[in-house]
């Protein structure tokens, strides 16, 4: 995904999000075309159209309308069955793409100037004496608050630069943007994760499974994109533009959906 977005490094994030959404829509409609039985789908759709027309033409005959409606329902189930396979092919790239886009376009970078709080949850709360938090490319603000009851420590950070790292009691994890420019991952924390979780939560940096920290959380404001006077989440932008691209792709590549 990063390579895909590299041409947009210096563009606003919206440009990258828009490009990926449009590409995704077109690619998904092509996947749909090549993984589905287009002839069968075309036939079902024709039949469904005929049934609907039949109902309109025989409104004076309730029996005929009921029969046509029942047949239409059966055709609907047949249609759904026909699109199960292509949807399964689409689901995996959709989930992975959505996760990647969420990690890249779902959040703002750690705000400059305004402190934001990082909370670490520990397997066992470390001793206060000798406990240090340092940052590389990020400003760490004392004091560190120890919450014994919850086995947590909290501190503030601000002014993160791309690639910023935080080290607390020897545990290091990235925070904020992984790199500069559009499309870089913005880490909202860190967690112990298995490989599947890593794929689904790319906005979290991995922590060692046997390390002392269970998870690190930081609240980073959600990114919003201004379109037509409104402010929209990345998911809305993605769904709208990928759908528009898919509709256009279906017309261009003669895909029966």
């Amino acid at each position: 995904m990063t390579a895909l977005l590299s041409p947009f490094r210096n563009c606003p994030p919206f440009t990258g999000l828009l490009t990926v959404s449009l590409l995704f829509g077109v690619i998904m409609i092509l996947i749909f075309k090549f993984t589905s039985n287009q002839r069968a789908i075309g036939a079902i759709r024709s039949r469904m159209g005929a049934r609907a027309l039949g109902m309109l033409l025989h409104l004076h005959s309730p029996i005929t309308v009921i029969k046509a409606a029942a047949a239409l329902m059966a055709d609907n189930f047949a249609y759904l069955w026909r699109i199960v396979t292509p949807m399964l092919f689409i689901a995996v790239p959709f989930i992975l793409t959505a996760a990647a886009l969420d990690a890249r376009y779902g959040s703002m970078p750690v705000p400059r100037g305004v402190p934001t709080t990082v909370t670490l949850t520990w397997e066992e709360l470390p001793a206060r004496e000798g406990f240090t938090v340092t940052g590389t490319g990020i400003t760490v603000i004392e004091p560190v608050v120890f919450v014994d009851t919850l086995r947590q420590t909290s501190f503030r950070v601000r002014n993160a630069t791309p690639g910023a790292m935080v080290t607390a009691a020897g545990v290091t994890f990235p925070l904020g943007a992984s790199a500069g420019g559009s499309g870089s991952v913005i880490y909202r924390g860190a967690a112990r994760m298995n490989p599947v979780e890593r794929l689904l939560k790319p906005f979290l940096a991995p922590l060692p499974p046997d390390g002392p920290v269970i998870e690190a959380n930081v609240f980073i404001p959600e990114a919003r994109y201004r379109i037509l006077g409104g402010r929209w989440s990345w998911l809305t932008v993605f769904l709208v533009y990928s759908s528009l691209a898919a509709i256009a792709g279906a017309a261009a590549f003669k895909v029966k959906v």
Partner: protein
Amino acid sequence: MNRREFLKRTAAASALLALSAGCGGVLRTRRKVLALAFDGLDPGLVRRYSALGLMPNAKRLMQMGSLRNLATSNPPQSPVAWSGFITGGGPDVHGIFDFIHRNPADRVPYLSTSRVNPPTRTLDVGDLRLPLSGGGVELLRKGEPFWKPLLQNGIPVTMIKLPIDFPAPRDRGGRFLSGMGTPDIRGSQGSFTFFTDDARSLSDDTSGGIIVPVRDNGDNCYRCRVTGPQNSLIEGAPVMEATAEVWADRTAEAVRIDLHGRSFVVGVGQWSPWVRFSFPAIAGISTVHAIGRFYLKELSPKLRLYLSPLNIDPENPALPISGPDWFARSIAEAIGPYYTKGFPEDTKALSRGIFNDDDYFSQATNVFDERLRMFTHALGSWKDGLLFFYFSSTDLNQHMFYRTIDPESPLHSSVAPRFRNIMGELYAKADRAIGQAMELLDGNTELMVFSDHGFAPFNRGFGLNSWLGAEGYAHVARPEDRNRDMFACIDWSRTSAYGLGLNSLYVNQAGREPDGIITTAEKYPLLERLARDLESVIDPLTGRRPVEKAYIVADMFPGKDLPPFAPDMIVGYARGYRSSWETALGAFPEEVITDNTDPWSGDHCVAPMLCPGSLITSSPMPEGLALQDMGAVITRALTGDP
């Protein structure tokens, strides 16, 4: 050009503009006016601090144009004065006579500038009360604003933090952000919350805020219930609440505040960033959003945690604070969340001892710095027409710190050394904003820096009601209730006049007030006698007259049909005096004139000629202008009339 000719031409320019708008014409202009309003900027102090080198930009500006005293309104209260600026008229035109008006039918006071009207029809579903029609917030200021003809002629107008402008106008082509008069989310003019486990801090006093007792149940966690607005969508309008968990770390001298899934670390003596509060009115459908800032005053041995009044969230405003709606949000996107309530400096917290001078100063500095960021943003996005920008800090900080420059203040000797020069620093900071504005000066841009009034010391409080009682104008029937508000001790059948608000005196008029005893024929002679008596009062301690002049309102507006809520007399106090705190709310304490020991040590509710405002302009202006002329002066500068 003398003042008379200047005003004639100004009026002619305004009339031409109105005519042009009426004929459907559109006047295009490339001229720009930057109107920079500093509430309470005193011309005497401007001269003093300019001479001392603390205001180099103001000095440069007055050398380019002029510095003039700007006549203020009567009474010289900000709502009255700014309403005059907006409409070009006096209280007879805009209907604002005081901060507080009273309903003559029951003498209950209310805020003079705006009110919330309940819906006229609702759909009741179970406990739900869904509004169908009517309701909303109403601006009580009357009269036509000076910017309407400008907008009708295609001249862009941006008014940021304009006082007495809530709810914000929706005039097409204009951009408005409400200032003074904008309430907090609870509907008050600013109500802080103070959480503490120190029983000694608890009190029944609710002025300016509430003190909430909390306790640690042994897990170092205080569960602090934050009171939000009333839920008008539910029967009985219960108060909505949010709970903040405050985790105390007494070793680190800091707390972590958890609220709505977010956490904030705050050390002792530190402020949190803006924290967002959500109060669901109907779960999943309607939520009221607010913002506030925590200040950890102390953690050991006792928790003392201050929460600012909850401001309307500019990104999700629950009430109409801007016109168009997106304007408040666009500012928040540029500079972050900001104080939206009309009086952002929490003077009540200092007056009640929740803050000390250091705490208050840090809060006031936050406000001023935030407003300067907003100003920088406004300058950067201003392209054409009129930009009006308002600063409250000069007013409220002078109220609280006038004692630092006034040796006669009862609190002068107790001012800490670090605050001795605070007034000079305040004016110097205002001067930096003037310098920033001057960078935009070109041949087509006019800069006008002005204020609604000046300032005077407030060392002695004049108990107008107590004096009325002592002189037989009011009869105290229950002496034990003298200190209770709202005339609790008064026998109305033997009372001919009463005071309410900061400068207002009312006759207990038959047919207007309940149990009124003064007939219409008796009213004017009574007012004449009251004026004579008030002006002859002598303060036994100082030998000075507390009342400079008592104005009979009927004489101020001859032939005008004034509304029933208008006062009958405006008491213009002498410098050093003001109505006592008790008088403002209708109490009758025994002593008539007392020392003012409140940190609120400067004021402007004196006779108007004693506290004119300032007018510093990049072009020379004639002497004798008044604040209510400024709308027409701005119009003339924009239209380019010679």
